[in-house]
């Protein structure tokens, strides 16, 4: 039943992707209400899935890699719903939907929804640590998407080849401001997530700590470069993409190692 909700949610996000693709091919790309509604509906089904799964588990649904991916996709959609209309980045939906489809599609296809034979006891501190960290990942994901948008826009301005999408993308300075804000949000949430990790009452595996601190340092370096105006905006945008790719890989590694550890 809960997986059905997830499939419907993925279809909603896919509808936004298809609609954008068709509009791009026809050369009449424009961000409309449809994309926002499709993402909004997808978000509702995601939330329903997580809620049912949470009730079944009696805790925050972050017990395996499958749930982590879905929670991450949910965080991305959540941050988009908060940031998109605020910073007039409605077009971001066209870029957000493919990422969510990718995350959820992979989670649905890959055999990673491994249920634990023993019911794990609830640990509010651990759940807070995991959920805040994943929402931070959502902000980093959106910063990555804004980075892609920045590079697309920048490339078109440099090469003088202005395609349909050019007229619907926000100005470079607005995109850069959005990237900066998202990086700060993500960084603050991630810092809270890491610090709260030390108060979970459980010993933390060294690999996880090193990986988490590594990601934190990476984003701290990007923000420091931005703050002291040592890194050009284009590089900040590129670093957001690299940073999120690294963070996602490490998240996978952390969750996978934690899962293996708990199975053993």
């Amino acid at each position, binding site marked *: 039943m809960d997986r059905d909700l997830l499939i419907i949610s993925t279809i909603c996000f896919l509808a936004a992707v298809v609609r954008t693709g068709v509009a791009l091919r026809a050369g*009449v790309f424009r961000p409309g209400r449809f994309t926002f509604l499709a993402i909004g509906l997808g978000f509702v089904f995601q939330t329903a899935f997580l809620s049912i799964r949470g009730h079944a588990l009696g805790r925050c649904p972050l017990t395996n890699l499958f749930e982590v991916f879905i929670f991450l996709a949910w965080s991305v959609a959540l941050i988009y719903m908060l940031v998109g209309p605020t910073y007039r980045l409605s077009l971001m939906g066209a870029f957000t939907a493919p990422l969510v489809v990718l995350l959820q599609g992979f989670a649905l296809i890959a055999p990673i929804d491994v249920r634990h034979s023993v019911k794990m006891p609830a640990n509010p501190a651990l759940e807070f640590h995991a959920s805040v960290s994943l929402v931070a990942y959502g902000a980093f994901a959106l910063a990555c998407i804004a980075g892609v948008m920045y590079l697309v826009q920048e490339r078109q301005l440099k090469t*003088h080849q202005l395609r349909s999408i050019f007229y619907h993308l926000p100005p*470079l300075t607005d995109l850069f401001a959005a990237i900066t804000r998202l990086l700060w949000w993500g960084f603050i949430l991630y810092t809270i997530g890491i610090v709260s990790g030390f108060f979970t009452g459980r010993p933390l595996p060294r690999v996880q700590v090193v990986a988490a601190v590594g990601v934190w340092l990476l984003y701290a370096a990007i923000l420091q470069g931005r703050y002291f105006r040592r890194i*050009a905006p284009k590089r900040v945008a590129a670093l957001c993409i690299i940073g999120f790719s690294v963070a996602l890989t490490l998240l996978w590694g952390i969750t996978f190692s934690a899962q293996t550890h708990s199975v053993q």
Partner: protein
Amino acid sequence: MNLFCVGLSHHTANVETRERFAGGARAESTLREAGCAEALVLATCNRVEVYGASEKRVSTDEIAHCLLQNRELSDRGHSETLPFYRYEAEKCVQHLFRVASGLDSMVVGETEILGQTKKAYQSARTSGAVGPCLHRLFQRAFRVAKQVRTHTEITRGSVSVGSVAVDLAQKIFGELGNCSVLILGAGETSERTARVLISRGVTDLRVSNRSTDRAQELAQRVSGQAVRFDQWPQQCCEIDILITSTSSEAPLLTPANLGPVLAHRIDRPLFIIDIAVPRDVDPAVNEMEGVYLYDIDALRSVAEQSLAVRRQQIASAEAIIAEHVADFLEKISRELSRASRITGHPPVADSSRATQL
């Protein structure tokens, strides 16, 4: 009621001819005296058209006569072939929808025509020259124009060099109110571009020219500030947009002399519009990070791309218009049938409904 459109436009007549028939303040009332139950004159720099509804047919010559500005011209006008076109019923509806949507304009997709049409409609309505027939026709035309604009890319991009430059500036900086602009060379094109920038909110304008007097003159005209020519390289640290149009034979701006300037403004883009021939800026400057260089050819190319896209969109726009023309005629036809049932007159045959609205 016969619905018709008589007019001349940039397609059929030169500007001298259009001026002669531009119609006066009394044109609409003269047309009504000539037998038009309803009349509306749409006079712009590219067209003079009369939209009318009448019980009996009003000839094109009579309408042309009403449009002539004075008797002297009127006498001369009768001895020559007038370049007027005439559309009736369905063709008239279709023509108005095309005009309002900018498909019949000199620059396809321009939006100014819609404003001009609305103004002409308001003026005719105020003077009582517009009745229910033209009212419905024009209201539908405004709806069609809006739909065409929303559902196609017919108005996308700019098609003049000055507007393209300003659009690009907005795509880089967003609001232009906080941007500083340096005009290098007091040429006519740079002045025009600067004026478009001012109209979009730019307030900080600096002008530099080899001749200080000319720099001061232009600075006064655009409410800017004159800068000595030997000081312009230092200004590049502070400005956001540089417009160059000097007559220098060698490039003034190269990667070598711009590099140190960029080091001080790593997080701020620099938009350079080089409209000089020969060019003032080395094309290699465009390869530098944070610099967006557009010379006159690049700006023209962007304008042409926009125009090409607009032309591609004509078919989609025509489809929307055709749909509305059919729907509009069907509604009018239904109303005529209903009216004939109420009054007891025999219903009008389908074939003649199209010509008799």
